[in-house]
């Protein structure tokens, strides 16, 4: 695999550049991760977890790792034109571009910073956090992310603090015309009894090949309420791999909402682990694909402790020659009695050439649990279509209305009104672009 030499060379250069400023534990962490990645390589479809999404092609693409690229006027325009421009943190190709905090946010006591800025100032804490979740990784892309660890968002919401306004993070890729790779690393800590909303936006220009390999770790403390959003709309040649790990302490509640609205090849792993009793999580995802896009959603929920509740609703809309994957796994440990786990995956296929692979998996080792799963694959309801047309609505608009309607419950579930409107608009725009082909 010639590509591996390329990544190794880039890694050596990366370490050389970081050596003068980083602690030895951080340097060692990167080296161990690189060794792990080199051993594993890019996963192929022969591996069960990657059955529907072969990543070996990444080994052949010479993506450049950059340490600070100039932001082109085009990208600057993209940033200012976007409603998410008021983001607290904006990263360009993985590195902090700007940070704007309102007085209210600063006054709340919440820490919202670039990870690179806190390696030294919060050394012990960061070291402990990175090590605790990284071991859970065992995922070649997490290893690769750690090998190139440099920047990302660090958020800590202190004990008992309730943040009303969402914290927006923008990750812009493909800032230059070069094919670049970035490895954003995010760490969010919700302390006991706190609550807040964090939105990760991923975007990039069309026509530009790039690879975003992002990693987010969320520590949901006792009794906290965490709202986590991902709004992904990479450019039409962008490759996006995202791995989110959520560790839930006792009595914590996590709502996860993901919207996959672009990118040539997208793989997302969302892992939740219950580490205390009476935790609950709700995971919702919408993937809306067109052209030859490929989106692979993997969720895994580990019920390690009793009395926890998890529910999932993932919905996919596939047009043209696109391909979607939903693989949802729930593992209930022997001690995790009174687990309540429910999983639903629904798919709408808009073209005979589109494809969905849906695979629910339940592994249950406890005997007193309530677990269910279901998945459906369907097409536009012809009776509903005729009904709308019989009221004068043109066929194309009627199809768009029904497609949008399919996604509506996931959009309506967004609690913050401005965010809901923003996402509704993005979904609407994307649905309007889809051409319905019945033949």
């Amino acid at each position, binding site marked *: 695999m010639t590509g591996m030499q390329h990544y190794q060379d880039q890694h050596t250069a990366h370490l050389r550049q970081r050596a003068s400023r980083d602690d030895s534990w951080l340097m060692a962490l990167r080296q161990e991760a690189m060794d792990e990645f080199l051993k594993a390589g890019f996963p192929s479809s022969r591996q069960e977890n990657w059955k529907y999404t072969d990543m070996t092609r990444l080994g052949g693409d010479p993506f450049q790792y950059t340490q600070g690229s100039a932001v082109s006027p085009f990208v600057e325009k993209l940033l200012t034109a976007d409603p998410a421009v008021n983001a607290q943190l904006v990263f360009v190709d993985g590195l902090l571009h700007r940070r704007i905090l309102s007085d209210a946010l600063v006054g709340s006591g919440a820490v919202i910073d670039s990870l690179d800025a806190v390696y030294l100032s919060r050394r012990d804490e960061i070291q402990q956090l990175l090590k605790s979740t990284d071991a859970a990784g065992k995922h070649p892309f997490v290893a690769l992310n750690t090998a190139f660890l440099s920047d990302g968002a660090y958020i800590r919401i202190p004990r008992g603090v309730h943040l009303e306004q969402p914290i927006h993070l923008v990750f812009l890729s493909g800032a230059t015309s070069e094919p670049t790779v970035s490895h954003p690393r995010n760490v969010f800590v919700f302390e006991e009894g706190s609550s807040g909303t964090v939105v990760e936006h991923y975007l990039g220009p069309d026509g530009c090949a790039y690879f975003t390999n992002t990693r987010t770790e969320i520590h949901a403390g006792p009794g906290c309420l965490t709202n986590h959003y991902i709004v992904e709309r990479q450019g039409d040649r962008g490759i996006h791999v995202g791995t989110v790990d959520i560790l839930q302490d006792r009595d914590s509640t996590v709502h996860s909402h993901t919207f996959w609205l672009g990118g040539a090849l997208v793989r997302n792993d969302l892992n939740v682990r219950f580490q205390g009793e009476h935790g609950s999580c709700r995971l919702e995802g919408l993937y809306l694909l067109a052209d030859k896009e490929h989106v692979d959603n993997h969720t895994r929920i580990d019920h390690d402790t009793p009395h926890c509740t998890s529910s999932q609703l993932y919905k996919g809309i596939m047009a043209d020659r696109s391909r979607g994957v939903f693989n949802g796994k729930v593992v209930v440990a022997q001690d995790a009695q009174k687990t309540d786990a429910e999983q639903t995956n629904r798919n709408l296929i808009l073209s005979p050439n589109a494809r969905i692979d849906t695979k629910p998996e339940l592994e249950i080792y406890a005997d007193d649990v309530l677990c269910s799963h279901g998945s459906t694959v369907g097409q536009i309801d012809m009776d*509903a279509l005729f009904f709308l*047309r*019989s*009221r004068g609505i043109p066929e194309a608009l*009627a199809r768009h*209305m*029904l497609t949008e309607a399919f*996604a*509506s419950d996931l959009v309506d579930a967004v609690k913050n009104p401005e965010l809901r409107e923003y996402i509704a608009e993005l979904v609407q725009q994307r649905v309007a672009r889809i051409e319905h082909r019945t033949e």
Partner: protein
Amino acid sequence: MLDISNLHVQIDGTEILRGLNLSIQAGEVHAIMGPNGSGKSTLAKVLAGDESYEITEGSVTYNGKDLLELAPEERACEGLFLAFQYPVEIPGVNNTYFLKAALNAARTYRGEAELDAYEFLSLVKEKMELLEMDKSFKSRPVNVGFSGGEKKRNEILQLTVLNPKMAVLDETDSGLDIDALRTVAKGVNSLRDADHAFLVITHYQRLLDYIVPDFVHVIVDGQIVRTGDKSLALEVDDKGYTTTPPAS
């Protein structure tokens, strides 16, 4: 306004309409009665443009146009309306949003300006009050969780808001209690004038006490076998279809 001539219609190889003739002028209300399977609902769906039916012979002319050549949405925009026997539930599509899309589609088709939000909402409010509908209908998804009666009322709301020239009501009375029946009839009658025509399909004479027809037709085996005035409905209700003598 509407001329149906020698209409033959099949579905899955079975002939349902076998040479049906019917002519409706502006301002008239026609009722069609007939036993189950006689082709009443088939006629309604064929007029609205349901593509699951195959037309093997005959013609339908609507305001000088070949109706059968028009797409369902074009028929609607030309002023033809079908109140469905079984209105479809559409989760995720808000009732008001749907009504607005429908009304503005027809206005655009006719080269008229779209209604602004205020004009549209005033119109809907007026019609909902006429039909004694709860305000919550506005924000609910189309027909989802509606009772049978609520669905029928919603059909008549669409009828009154869209204000079509030619309305076909397919068993709008089925499943309605007497109060709902009166309200629905009030909605229909509010549109009756010299420009509007109605084709009312029903099993029962009862509806025709409230929407009084100018003509009553009896359909048996895909053909109209008798035509009369409103007294024919009473006769059918009294004696049934089986005793109806074939047309001479």
